[in-house]
Structures are given as structure tokens and as C-alpha cells.
């Protein structure tokens, strides 16, 4: 494919830039499978928005809907579980903090495949969870290869992305503010809602942003732990690049995902800028 023609269309340019070298090799093998395209070329040098319009097809719309929903659920669970953990670590003694951080970052240091096998042992048909359910006389449930399993896997690996920024902003809140709130009559939960939460909002926003953007672009975890019929956008892009060789379509999905993430980022920046003005100046 001609580089000049490709550069005319930014989305094909992106595609050509990233896989430009492989492009020719693939074409010469004649292994193109996508029937809508030329049998000798992965990319046709014609400008079209068809690849973007198709995102509104029910299949792709469901794909995006599922991806964004799983991202949202993962982010929400990370926030709910991460807040107490971040608070605990931010106020912990140095030795406890070191141990806690090590445990927190551990999942990132383990190969995804090994981690997933670990989850299979726990969540599988005859896994630990189901054995426990059977032992107390309940029906076993299907956990592995469901959306639940995907969310569990994503929460497991992306928790540090939530906890670290939250921790950083909680650390900057002087403990005397907590005591002042309690002295003025706030119970611990009231204190948390009225001082820690609003003052660590910038950390919460960055944590959510990080977790959400890495969750919606997740590939390995949904591929290994999710149902093949309920895929996420990352898997679809992978398939369209390497299985169906429909690179323009893959590029349009990728760009849509990037644009969506950027949109979130700017929205978050606007909110944090407002919140940043209220941060502690000392």
C-alpha cells in the first residue's frame, strides 16, 4: 500500500505507521481473509467513514456498551475497596506501609497468565469458591468465563492504579483536620465524608481515570477469564488485526477508544482544576 495515499487519511496513517512493515509481508502471503477488501491488500486507499459508522451497528454498539460498563463496574469496585485501603496505608506506620505497598503492587509483578490460572483455581467449576458453596450445602455457581470473572480479574490487577493516587492525596491531609472534625461533633463516618472525601477528590479522580482507561482497553484478562461471546473492545481489535485482517476497522475501534479516553481526561482535568484550588496550601 502506498504511504502517500495512506497518509491522506489519519486513521489509515495510524494503522500504516504501526504495522507498516508487517503489512507487506502479510499481503505477499495472500492470507487476507476479509471478503470486503481486496484479496491482495489489507487496506484500500479510499477514504471512507464506513468503519466509524459501523460502531453504531448493534454488534459493535453492544461491544462498546459492554466494555464501558465493565470499565465502570471495575472502577467503582476499585474505588469502594481502594478507599479504605488507601486511607489505611496513608496513615500507617512506615513498616506497615512498606509491607502494604509490596502486597498492593504484587499482582503487577506476576505474569498475567499465571495470575489467571490462579483465579481459575479459585473461581473454576470445581474451584475453591464452588467447593466452599457445596460444602455448606449450596448449589455451585458458574463464575469463570463470565463478566463477573473479568471484573474480578481487572479489579485484582488494577487496584494499585486506584490506591496509589488516593494514598498520595490522603497523605497530604493533616491528621489534625480529622481530629478537628471529630472535636466538632462528627462521628468517624461523618468525618470521612465531610473532610477526607472532599479533600482527596483529586486523588479519587485520577485513580478512577487511570483504572477506567486501562480497564476499557484490557485484553488479556477478558480473553482468558471472560466468555468468548461477551468480548471487550480490546479483543475485537486483536481479532480484526490478526484474525480477520480488517485493519481499518480495527483502527477505527482503537481511535474511538482513544478519543473516548481523551474526552474523559479533559473532563477530569476540568473538575480537578476546580478542586485543586481548594487544596491545602502550606
Amino acid at each position, binding site marked *: 500500500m502506498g504511504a502517500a495515499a495512506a497518509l491522506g487519511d489519519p486513521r489509515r496513517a495510524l494503522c500504516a505507521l504501526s504495522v507498516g512493515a508487517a503489512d507487506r509481508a502479510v499481503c505477499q502471503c495472500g492470507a487476507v481473509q476479509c471478503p470486503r477488501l481486496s484479496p491482495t491488500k489489507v487496506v484500500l486507499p479510499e477514504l471512507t467513514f464506513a468503519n466509524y459508522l459501523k460502531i453504531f451497528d448493534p454488534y459493535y454498539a453492544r461491544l462498546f456498551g459492554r466494555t464501558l460498563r465493565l470499565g465502570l463496574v471495575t472502577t467503582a469496585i476499585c474505588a469502594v475497596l481502594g478507599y479504605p485501603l488507601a486511607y489505611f496505608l496513608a496513615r500507617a506506620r512506615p513498616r506497615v506501609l512498606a509491607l502494604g505497598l509490596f502486597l498492593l503492587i504484587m499482582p503487577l509483578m506476576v505474569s498475567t497468565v499465571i495470575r489467571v490460572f490462579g483465579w481459575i483455581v479459585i473461581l473454576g467449576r470445581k474451584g475453591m469458591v464452588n467447593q466452599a458453596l457445596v460444602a455448606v450445602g449450596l448449589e455451585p455457581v458458574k463464575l469463570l468465563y463470565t463478566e463477573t470473572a473479568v471484573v474480578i480479574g481487572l479489579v485484582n490487577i488494577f487496584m494499585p492504579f486506584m490506591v496509589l493516587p488516593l494514598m498520595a492525596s490522603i497523605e497530604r491531609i493533616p491528621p*489534625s483536620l480529622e481530629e*478537628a472534625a471529630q472535636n466538632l461533633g*462528627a462521628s468517624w463516618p461523618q468525618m470521612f465524608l465531610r473532610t477526607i472525601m472532599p479533600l482527596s477528590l483529586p486523588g479519587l479522580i485520577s485513580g478512577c481515570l487511570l483504572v477506567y482507561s486501562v480497564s476499557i482497553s484490557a485484553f488479556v484478562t477478558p480473553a482468558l477469564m471472560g466468555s468468548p461471546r461477551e468480548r471487550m473492545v480490546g479483543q475485537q481489535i486483536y481479532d480484526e488485526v490478526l484474525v480477520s485482517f480488517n485493519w481499518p476497522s480495527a483502527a477505527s475501534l482503537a481511535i474511538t477508544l482513544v478519543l473516548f479516553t481523551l474526552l474523559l481526561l479533559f473532563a477530569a482535568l476540568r473538575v480537578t482544576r476546580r478542586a485543586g484550588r481548594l487544596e*491545602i496550601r502550606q
Partner: protein
Amino acid sequence: MPAGVELDVRGLTKRYSSQVSVGPISFEVREGEFFSLLGPSGCGKTTTLRCIAGFETLSAGSISLRGVRLDDRPPHRRDVGLVFQNYALFPHLDVFDNVAFGLRLRRVPTVQTRERVGRMLELVGLPEMAGRFPSQLSGGQQQRIAIARSLVLEPRILMFDEPLSNLDFKLRIQMRDELRRLQRRLGKTSIYVTHDQTEALALSDRIAVLSHEKIEQIGTPAEIYERPATAFVADFIGSSNLLQARIVERNERGTVIETQGGLRLYCAGGAVDSAGGDISVLLRPERIRVAVAGPAEEGEPNRFPARIAEITYLGEDLHLNLELAGGQSLRAALKNSIAAAGLAPAQQVHIVVDPDDIRLLHT
């Protein structure tokens, strides 16, 4: 329980580890009183305050407010206001919301909240600051808002944890006087923690002097200054000449002592019991009279020739280092008056010590 006692602290003890502990500390704070806990850093005064506020749990002892046990209640149900050293204003709330914080937690109606916050801001002299954020206020203004935030809840007791230590010198004096006026006007029982003796002397009705996790003496500012109970109190409050001495003679007119520097002093005050006669003697520098050398007058028992070793000029005051015959050295403080104008280093003078101004203490 005696009438008028607001807060009763009995045997307060806080153990952090086998080595570090505070107490046992016992004291009573009377209704409407301004009570100070004074001591060097690490003496346990802040720990005591934090125990009363509920941020530390007691290892032993009890705290009662008007006869009701306080120490088993969580911090938010104690009804004691605390003004923090760094003010601890909420940076995400403006002045109005800071002051209204406690009222909103108590679900006070909006109209009433607005009225009470307004009245409080009026009281601390900052009614026009309601819309400002804490970061837009000076240290002194933050201090007043912190006081208003506690006072608006009408707590039984208002406590201050070194509230003036972050202010510069002039502002500190100004806030100190303001604080005293405010406290006198409201008649609010107050506990004030400080390491600054002038603050404690200027503000308090009574002072508890602490050292090494224990109370050394409780008394009015004058009692603490004029009749310190221990050598530590004498040394900590004000500047002092603290001399080692032994009792030479005792009769109905007073006591004769001799310092290690060989100075023989007649003291009018009641003598302390001391095995072997070893005691400490306190001479306040400002109570030592310095006279230009001349013949001794009749009836002046403690008159000694001395040589001025050094003069420190402090504007309002002059501090003299004096050397006496026998090698005893003393510090004296004089007002910078005409009488002091002629003094110069190496000059020979006489010093006179009134027998009533000498305090005998246990070593």
C-alpha cells in the same frame, strides 16, 4: 465533689511503652476558670489535653465533666472544644462553612445557623470574612476563626493547644490580650496548653506546671512565681539565681544559710525541712538591688560588695552578671532608669537582698 468544679482529672496515666509514659496527673478545673498546663516540650501537657478531647485513650485514671465520666465517650460526644496549634481549618470550606460545620452536624436549622455563625464572626471581629477561604486569611485571622468554630457550639470547656506559637511576636501579644478579654467576657471554662511562661502568667487564673510527665505545682500565677514549690518550677518560671546552700542556723527571726559560693544570707521565710541541711535557694534577679558602693546602712542584713562582670543591654531592662567575694556569681535585672545609667562593667557596687525575697527549696 466540691461545688464549682467543672472538669476533674484523676490519676490520668497514658503509657506508650514500658519506657514512655505520662502521669499520673490529677487536677481540677473550676467553673469559668482559665487554667493553664505549662511545661517544657515532652512534659505530657499536650497528651493530657488529647486525653480530655478523646484522641488518646487513658491507660489509667478518670476524667469527669461536672461529675459525669468523660473518658469512655468517643471524641465527637464530649462537648469540649479544642483549638488546634495549626488551627486545623477545613481548606475546602469557606469561613462561614467552617464555623457552621458543627452546627450542621447537629442539624441546627439554616436560619439559626446563619444567625449564630454571624454572631460568632462578629464576636471575633471578622464579620466581613465569611466568604473567604482559610488560605486567604492571615495567621491571626485563622486563629480567630478556629476559636469561633469551637465557641459557636457553646462547649462546656474550651481548650487551646499552644494556639499562639505560630504567630509572630507582636501578633502573639495582641492575640493573647484578646483571648483573655474574650474568655473573661464569656466566662468560658478554658484549658490552655503552652510552653511559654509569659503566656501562662498573663492569661491564667491558675497554672499547673508540669515536668517529666508529672505535675510539679498548681497555683495562681503569683503563687507559682513568688512561692515556687520545687527547684524545677523556680528555674522554669522566670529567670532565677538558683543556688546550692546549706542551713547554718535557725531561730525565730529566720534562717541563716550559706551558699556553696560562700555567701551568708539571712532569710525571713519559713524554712524547709531538709536532712543534712542541704537546700536550694532562689533569688529572683529583679529582686536584687544594686547600689553604688558606699558604707553599709544599719539594719541591712544582706548587703555584699560585688563587681559587675558584664552588662547586657535589652532596652527596657539591663541584665547584670555580678561577681561576689568568694567566687559566687549572681544575675541581676534592673529597669533601664536613671539609677542604672551610671553602671559600667568592672565597676564595684553593693548588692542588697531583702530577707523576704529569698526562697528556700528542697534540692
